[in-house]
């Protein structure tokens, strides 16, 4: 039962992450390969605020703002670049954030990480509080989803898709392409920060090793498996990927074979990305009127 609850909390966190990446990748056509950095910034911000004795809810709100602010700050200069170069710049940013978490011991406690991150008061610290935490995660995820839904169905969302398809057309229509992209990245990274805060207060221990490219690739898989640019696709993708990942813990695997589990999982994820790109690049729940190119 507890395993199921745990898996569901993880699903919620990855739904938020996948949706936040989808806003950038699927709607605006920007591949942020440093998504995990904003997840990490959110996690550390919220954890540090809560550990300093402030309310956890405040920490989560500030985490969103800080992550979104960092996102906008990174986006502003590098968005002049298109395509692959935006990906490399964000990848480099994520590696820099990782090195920062690792080296600034006074702030992040370095490689030892931050233990004992409190959960919100009304939930309590015991293991029995899991259902309540799931409820909070669910509410926040639904709120994030509804917010995003409103956003992408608004004129803003339609303009973003025009930017994705052809920037020249967007410009000709009088849209400020740079402003549109920065807003997309700021909202997306802000939501990643929220996911980070949710995660930090859930696992109660974070360390720099949690925020590597592996996580970005996992989020990417959720998005492209579900269908990039589709509103519900990434939710489905996150559910499948996380149930597959966490479900492996139930299999009766002998202890001496345990070390093979993670690499095989990685191979399956990598292979899934390749097969998806070859056979079904639009995912299992594709965006409706996706033109064939």
């Amino acid at each position, binding site marked *: 039962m507890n395993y199921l609850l745990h898996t569901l909390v993880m699903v919620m966190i990855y739904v938020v992450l996948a949706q936040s990446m989808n806003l950038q990748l699927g709607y605006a056509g920007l591949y942020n390969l440093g998504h995990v950095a904003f997840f990490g910034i959110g996690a550390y911000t919220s954890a540090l605020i809560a550990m300093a004795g402030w309310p956890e809810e405040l920490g989560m709100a500030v985490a969103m703002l800080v992550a979104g602010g960092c996102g906008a700050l990174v986006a502003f200069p590098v968005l002049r670049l298109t395509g692959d170069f935006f990906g490399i710049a964000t990848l480099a*940013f994520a*590696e820099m954030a990782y090195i920062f978490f690792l080296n600034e011991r006074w702030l992040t406690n370095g490689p030892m990480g931050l233990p004992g991150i409190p959960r919100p008061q009304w939930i309590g610290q015991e293991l029995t509080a899991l259902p309540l935490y799931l409820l909070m995660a669910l509410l926040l995820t639904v709120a994030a989803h509804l917010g995003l839904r409103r956003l992408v169905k608004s004129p803003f969302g339609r303009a973003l898709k025009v930017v994705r398809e052809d920037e020249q057309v967007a410009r000709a229509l009088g849209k400020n392409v740079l402003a549109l992209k920065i807003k997309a990245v700021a909202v997306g990274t802000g939501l990643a920060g929220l996911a980070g805060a949710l995660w930090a207060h859930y696992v109660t221990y974070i360390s720099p090793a949690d925020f590597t490219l592996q996580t970005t690739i996992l989020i990417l898989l959720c998005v492209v498996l579900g269908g990039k640019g589709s509103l519900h696709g990434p939710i489905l993708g996150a559910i499948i990927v996380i149930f597959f990942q966490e479900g492996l813990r139930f299999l009766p695997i002998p202890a001496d074979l345990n070390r093979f589990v993670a690499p095989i999982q990685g191979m399956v994820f990598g292979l899934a990305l390749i097969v998806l790109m070859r056979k079904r690049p639009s995912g299992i729940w594709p965006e409706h009127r996706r033109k064939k190119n």
Partner: protein
Amino acid sequence: MYHLQFILNGLIAGSVYALFAVGLTMTYGIFRFINFAHGELIAWGAYGLLWFSGPLLGLPLIWAALPAIALTICIALAADKLVYAPLRHQDRITLLIASIGLSFFLRSLLQLVFGAELMTYGREAGRGWEIAGLYVTGVQAGMGITAVAFLAGLYLLLTRTLLGKALRAVSDNMELAGIMGLPMHRVNRTVWLLSALFAAVGGMLLGLDTSLDPFMGLANLVKAFAAVLLGGAGNVWGALLGGLFIGITENLSVAFIDPGYKDFVAFAVIIAMLLFRPQGIFALTRGEVR
């Protein structure tokens, strides 16, 4: 003198980064996408050497290098045939995501076979020489010489042979080169072969100097990116100079900042380059940037 030693170390490290970067920039120049799996070719080259020199064949290191290089080239050619060639006419996001998937797959396979721990070739640390106050180890000297030999070979290939001419033509304008009747399949194969060869050799040299771990490919891929950007994407000689530059700045930075931030330098170079000079510092002409 103190700083000169760092510069020398940087030159040697940089010549290895240059080996990675020329391969990456060649595939970019021809196929117009960033091959994320290039880092895994580096790691597979290094682990191949470990495998063939250790439990599998027990060959001496120098002979084990040959099958290790052959293995890496086979991986690159198979990747082209199974992943990249069928996707060549898709959009760039599709190709990029596929190469990320491939890199994740190859890295996990490496972890499955060899485990995640640090490994070495089990050589004893050789004694070095002191020349004019500068200290060089045997491995370092070997690294420098090998890198220079391979890069000189590449220079001769590109400038003195018909195949090299074809390579440069395709990198300039693929469609036009195709219309002129250049054998595109052969050119494509050669590019993968060269980039895998250089990645494998660089990976082995790096493994000899430090140690091997499954993530070594990823870490060095980012440095190769930085070198490629410095040189201007697609520019082979630029990538070479870029690699040297990254090596030197990185090693010299240790004299001024916390060594924990050594890797920060390459990333900072990437961001600065992308912001201020996306066409590259060493680009002779204003290249097309997309």
